[in-house]
């Protein structure tokens, strides 16, 4: 027989999990549904996929600049060279 009864262990696990689920359900209209809300794990992939596929412009208005793909390539090459250093 465990120190804490089985049913209490099961209820503890289920209640903590379900509190999280229900908080997510309550906040769904503020945190999930609006298109402005991007969750941090997905934001990385969204930004990278947009950089690689959709966003092809460079600069803003009359101001020039480099495109996001070119900036990404610079950072990629620089990161690859930096990774050769012993860390």
């Amino acid at each position, binding site marked *: 027989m465990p120190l804490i009864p089985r049913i209490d262990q099961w209820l503890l696990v289920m209640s903590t999990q379900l509190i999280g*689920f229900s908080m997510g359900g309550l906040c769904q209209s503020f945190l999930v549904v*609006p*298109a*402005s809300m*991007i969750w941090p794990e997905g*934001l*990385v*992939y*969204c*930004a*990278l*996929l*947009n950089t*690689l*596929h*959709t*966003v*092809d*412009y*460079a*600069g*803003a*208005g*009359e*101001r020039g600049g480099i*495109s*996001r*793909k*070119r900036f990404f*390539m610079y950072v990629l090459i620089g990161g690859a060279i930096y990774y050769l250093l012993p860390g």
Partner: protein
Amino acid sequence: MTLRLPICLSTVRFIRISLPPTLATFASAQPCAIDRAVEDVTGARFFDPNLDRARIGDPNQDSPYPEVRSAVANTDDPEMPCSTIRAWILGVIMAVIIAGINQFLYVPFTFGTIFIFNDRHVNTSACSYFRYPSVMITQIPILLVSLPLGRGIASILPDVEIFGAKLSPGPFTIKEHVLVLAMTIVGAYPAYATDIIAVQRVFYNQQWSFACQCLFFTQLSWPCYVFSRNTACMVQY
């Protein structure tokens, strides 16, 4: 308004550099009245492909700030090809290869090596989680590798129809890329049941037969699929 093609990738010959047709229609179709709204906020007038022109001004649906919009588009192009034959071919091949590489790296020692643990000779082919740091192909490298592969397969495949579906409908799109990613990442990580087999083999000197191990892996996986399908209406959609 200028559209500048990516110059950094143009040195690679097999990558098809062309503007998607959706961008061209976006650029030519709309008047400047809505871009003036962007100009009021940002102080600059420029072409923004992620701008949801039907819902500008609604902060729940579209942000006026290009920094926010530049992360993700909340517009949809329903004519963009998504579930194409080439995406499925590439996704299946990459799922097999990446899952095989990750499972191989999860068990890093050479098969058949013998070492002494706890006064017993054990086979080290199962001592997987003693290795630190571990090597694994994660999601961002998969994303970066699948892009030139997709563009390459899009330029190699001929323009024919198979069963009424085009084999190569235009350039490699973002939806196909996401489909390939989803198919690859789902199978990319090794099953945790490998640890059980490893612990049995190293610490308890037990070894099941191959068929028994296969059945063990599947009987651990399929209830999870069943539960996720049964609760899909509550926790997914």
